[in-house]
């Protein structure tokens, strides 16, 4: 036969458990302990409050450009919830909720956003890489970290995040291919938020889904409603277990939406209308989760109000602490800009550092 269909290469499933009204598919509903449900809700709501606060700080000129996460809390928390402390998180640049879940401190996030290198001082025991601005480049790092883990016979896994735009970069395809060929314990979480700055997904790829790209690399691809915390949790558990127990990578596509600007330097009114955004307001991941939790009798409006107030006060306090730190840093000498370039000092750097110290005195004396 000169031409015949090759074997069925793969199936891409779409999973949805909790719909936008908060109704749950009982047959698919996972058995998650109540304390875990509440912890995830808390993280999502805190992530939302943190993001809102950060947007205000940016608009007030107190911090620089950042990428808001609004609407993507479920995709981040539902996935990161399965990580053990010894697992690795390799983020892109829109995972603040996941980073906080892993232990990142508001003060450090804000110091970084305010332009201070001190903000990226990652604790020694944290297996979290810093946020990564060049698109898709971190995905290969995730594969490399996973290789090292596997090489040493450890059962830690790597979870890495990227967006829909990243799937156009060569690094994305290389990372999937390497992970597939080398059987690496990586979970690639795609937050498909429909937009890469001004480009809608249809201008990014002709593929109907992002998950199907996994098929080409011979690895599992899953597609879930990324605003459905239960679906993300179930699919991510499957992917994490497979990575940990079988060393098989997975591409997990979370279909979500970028409710806010790309970054605070962006103006979405140039390329999308309220009509594009409106349907997604109803699909908010937090409100549908709250409907679910209320029906279970785990929360009520009063607890929610209390949580928001607690978060607001805590964030206020954290910002105050950040501001004090900034004042302290500004009052001191920024000699740290010469640090950590190499493992040791070299004469030309030492010389430039001494020169810089003299320049500081001179510039300050001059006002």
């Amino acid at each position, binding site marked *: 036969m000169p031409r015949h269909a090759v074997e069925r290469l793969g199936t891409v499933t779409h999973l949805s458990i909790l719909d936008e009204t908060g109704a749950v598919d009982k047959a698919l509903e996972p058995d998650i302990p109540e304390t875990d449900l509440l912890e995830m809700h808390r993280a999502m709501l805190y992530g939302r409050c943190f993001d809102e606060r950060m947007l205000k700080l940016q608009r007030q000129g107190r911090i*620089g*450009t950042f990428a808001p996460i609004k609407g993507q809390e479920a995709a981040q928390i539902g996935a990161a919830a399965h990580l053990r402390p010894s697992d690795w998180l390799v983020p892109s640049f829109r995972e603040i909720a996941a980073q906080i879940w892993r232990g990142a401190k508001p003060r450090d996030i804000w110091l*970084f956003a*305010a*332009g*201070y*290198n001190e*903000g990226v001082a990652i604790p020694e025991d944290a297996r979290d890489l810093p946020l990564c*601005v*060049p*698109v898709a*480049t971190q995905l290969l790092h995730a594969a490399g970290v996973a290789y090292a883990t596997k090489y040493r016979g450890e059962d830690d896994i790597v979870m890495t995040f990227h967006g829909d*735009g*990243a799937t*156009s*970069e*060569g*690094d994305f395809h290389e990372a999937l291919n390497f992970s597939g060929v080398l059987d690496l314990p990586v979970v690639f979480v795609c937050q498909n938020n429909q937009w*890469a*700055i*001004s*480009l809608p997904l249809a*201008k*990014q*790829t002709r593929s109907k889904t992002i998950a199907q790209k996994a098929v080409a690399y011979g690895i599992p691809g899953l597609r879930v409603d990324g605003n459905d915390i239960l679906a993300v949790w179930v699919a991510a558990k499957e992917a994490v277990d497979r990575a940990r127990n079988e060393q098989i990578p997975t591409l997990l596509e979370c279909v979500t939406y970028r409710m806010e600007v790309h*970054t605070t*330097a*962006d103006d979405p009114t*140039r*390329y999308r209308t309220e009509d594009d955004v409106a349907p997604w307001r109803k699909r908010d991941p937090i409100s549908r989760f709250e409907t679910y939790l209320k029906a279970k009798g785990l929360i009520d409006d009063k607890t929610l109000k209390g949580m928001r107030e607690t978060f607001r006060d805590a964030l206020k306090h954290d910002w105050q602490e950040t501001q004090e730190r*900034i004042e302290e*840093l*500004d009052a001191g000498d*920024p000699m740290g*800009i*010469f640090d950590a*370039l190499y493992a040791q000092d070299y004469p*030309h*750097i030492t010389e*430039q550092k001494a020169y*810089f110290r003299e*320049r*500081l005195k*001179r*510039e300050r004396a*001059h006002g």
Partner: protein
Amino acid sequence: MAELTMIQAVNLAMREALAEDDAVILLGQDVGVDGGIFRATQGLIEDFGAARVLDTPLAEAGIIGMAVGMALNGMKPVAEMQFSGFSYQAFHQIENHVARFRWRTNGRFSVPMVIRMPYGAGVRALEHHSESREAYWAHTPGLKLVIPSGPIKARALLAAAIRDPDPVIFYEPKALYRAFKEDVPDVAEPIKIGKADVVRVGKDLTLIAYGAMLPRAVDAATKLAGDGIEAEVIDLMTISPLDEETIIQSVKKTGRAVVVHEASRSFGVGAELCARINDKAFFHLEAPVKRVTGYDIHPPFFAREQHYLPSVLRIYDEARETLTI
């Protein structure tokens, strides 16, 4: 005559090129509907259509590789890298192909194209958005590297770059995008690629700068004039190929030179200028050539970026020191 910012002047040059030559095409991320994240291509998709102002998928290597193919087949692509910090994701295309096609086909194929990219610090941007790595491109044979220092020059140089038969890296100092306006003439006064501009005439020393450091060098010269020192200021405009003649002529006259750039110091453009001056004007020198540059570190996150950049005072101090020898 229109009063334009540098970003508007860049836009004007591309508008004129699109109108003048059907072979010209713009491509890059967000250059179409969005008008470019810095608005460099604002309004162009409306007037020239989506086939000539092409929004591409998010892949730098894809953009440059495609542009190579377009140029091989008779088009004149003007590709945008959103930030120079992301151009490294296309490094292999630029080094292996853009820079070499004419040479590796013995002149049979050439790739006349322009790669525009914003570079440099000073706009309180994120990591990877503030570097000045012009030395990478200047060090690569087969590429030309042009850096404007204001609206009039940006328009004229970009027009020249698009007309050039060889590939040109057009490095845009983003700190100057909206820093000041100039009266940009209705018809571009041509500026040749490969020529430097003496922006201020002086006899006591030569300040050599380009891009966002040019206005600072000019301010330093003004400050020196207050001390009765006449500094000549040269705007390189084209980094590669370098206008050696203008530089050597000036240094032979003044006997002293200070090179200013925001890129880190070692192995940078300043080092090349020192070497050329040593080669051609050594016996005219009254003092060693000075470099006032960024430090040999990555530009710090933005709260400290001004500490990294050469200040007017620092340029002035270093010039004064040169004069004490």
